[in-house]
């Protein structure tokens, strides 16, 4: 299982990449492995207001459906245009080509939004899951 050190994570198995006042969001390698083949993703459209911890979409895989939760507060500025045609990108490249959407953060002070986990904390959490 891959957990890149430069990203932040949520207990709902999403990752967040911070760049200035923008956050990019996707699902983790652990999540895509647990889900199996992703067949459809519903992502909030650009312009949608999202709130940390609130459902903002869903991920359909062969065996299950899961809610997507926004990890941050802000406004969606961009969605990955490739995902609709090729949802398998979430499986093949969850931290790269499988990114889902970008958010302009409400709090643009450059601080890490509350509630996010470091890679070490997230790794510990997924280990607990498996025990």
């Amino acid at each position: 299982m891959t957990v890149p050190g430069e990203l932040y994570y949520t207990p709902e198995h999403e990752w967040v990449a911070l760049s200035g006042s923008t956050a990019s969001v996707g699902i983790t390698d652990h999540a895509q492995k647990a889900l199996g083949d992703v067949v459809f993703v519903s992502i909030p459209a650009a312009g949608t207001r999202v709130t940390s911890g609130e459902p903002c979409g869903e991920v359909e895989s062969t065996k299950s459906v899961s809610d997507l939760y926004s990890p941050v507060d802000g406004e969606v500025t961009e969605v990955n245009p490739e995902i609709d045609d090729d949802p398998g990108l979430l499986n093949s490249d969850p931290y790269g080509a499988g990114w889902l959407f970008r958010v302009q953060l409400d709090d643009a002070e450059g601080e890490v939004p509350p509630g996010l986990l470091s890679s070490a904390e997230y790794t510990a959490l997924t280990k607990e899951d498996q025990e």
Partner: protein
Amino acid sequence: MTDSATAAPGGHDASGAPAGPRRTPLTSVHERLGASLTDFAGWLMPLRYGSETAEHNAVRTAAGLFDLSHMGEFAVTGDGAAAALDYALTGEPSALKPGRARYTMISAPDGGVIDDLIVYRLAEHEFLIVANAANAPVVGAALAGRAAGFDAAVRDRTDDYALIAIQGPRSAAILAPLTSADLAEVRYYAGYPAKVAGRDALLARTGYTGEDGFEIFAAPQDAEYLWAELSEAGAGDGLVPAGLAARDTLRLEAGMPLYGNELTADLTPYDAGLGRVVRLDKPGGFVGRDSLARRAQETPVRQLVGLTLQSRRVPRHGYTVLWDGEPAGVVTSGAPSPTLGVPIAMAYVRPEVAAAASDPDGAGTAVLAVDVRGRPEPATLVEMPFYRRPA
């Protein structure tokens, strides 16, 4: 993201502590192959090895190798074995010729389905019953109780068999060089002793995928060897190991019921459209006969139907079927169909809804839909199976 509808990959204890799920004779092989393992009916089973869609497609176009060693096996032997099974099951095993098999069910006295089974007649006085893993203890107890008045012995042989299935259009070509059996002579639903890769096995032309294929019952200590021999023999033919996730979408496309979904203790075989497995007229009577005879005469209150959706949102077990916006039934199984490319589902609906929805003139403006997490997704009623293999 919260996983709301699937079992999490099963935690297992490497020390083999008794609290964890049971391992099959092939679990170590699956671990070496990097499978996602899950606790399925108390067994640590491979859910997928890589992409379950790729595994599904391999079975449709080439072949897949499955570990089914979790299935329950019961030997019923003795001069009264055939009579005992005629009494215990809905079908008529006494009418089977040795070397033949039949899909059948075991009903409770009220007609409810305890399990669906395959019964193999291995010899005049020797039968093998294959039960779903989750139901094996209940089936074993029912068989033993029902056989008590007959000259027949019931033995749980689950631990004596590894069960490997090879399924798909290339199965026969892959298996033929490895077995003493003349596969051209092994008909669908035949099963008898044969050598496979030099080991003693029971070889049957049965399966749960909608494809041609074979199931190989072998000694547990031979399982790893047979798996390796089959894998090697099939490598050039596109044979891949396939997990339970692919098995579920394969059987769903083939319109085959799954116990716990389409079949339950609250339903009879007639509900599932499988009245053909009930032999009301066999001599001697059987457990559940009176209830099933009544049920056969009644107007059905539900009908099992196939649905396809145009949306990419997937109907799942337990979702409500809507007719004109009102609840009209419930989805029993649903998945994105790799072969059809759209979501498919089996559902129980009211018979009048099934009739109206399948009649283009009778439906008027009413719309058939599935409530997919709060939003109705239009559905089309289709004939099952969703997939039929090319002749």
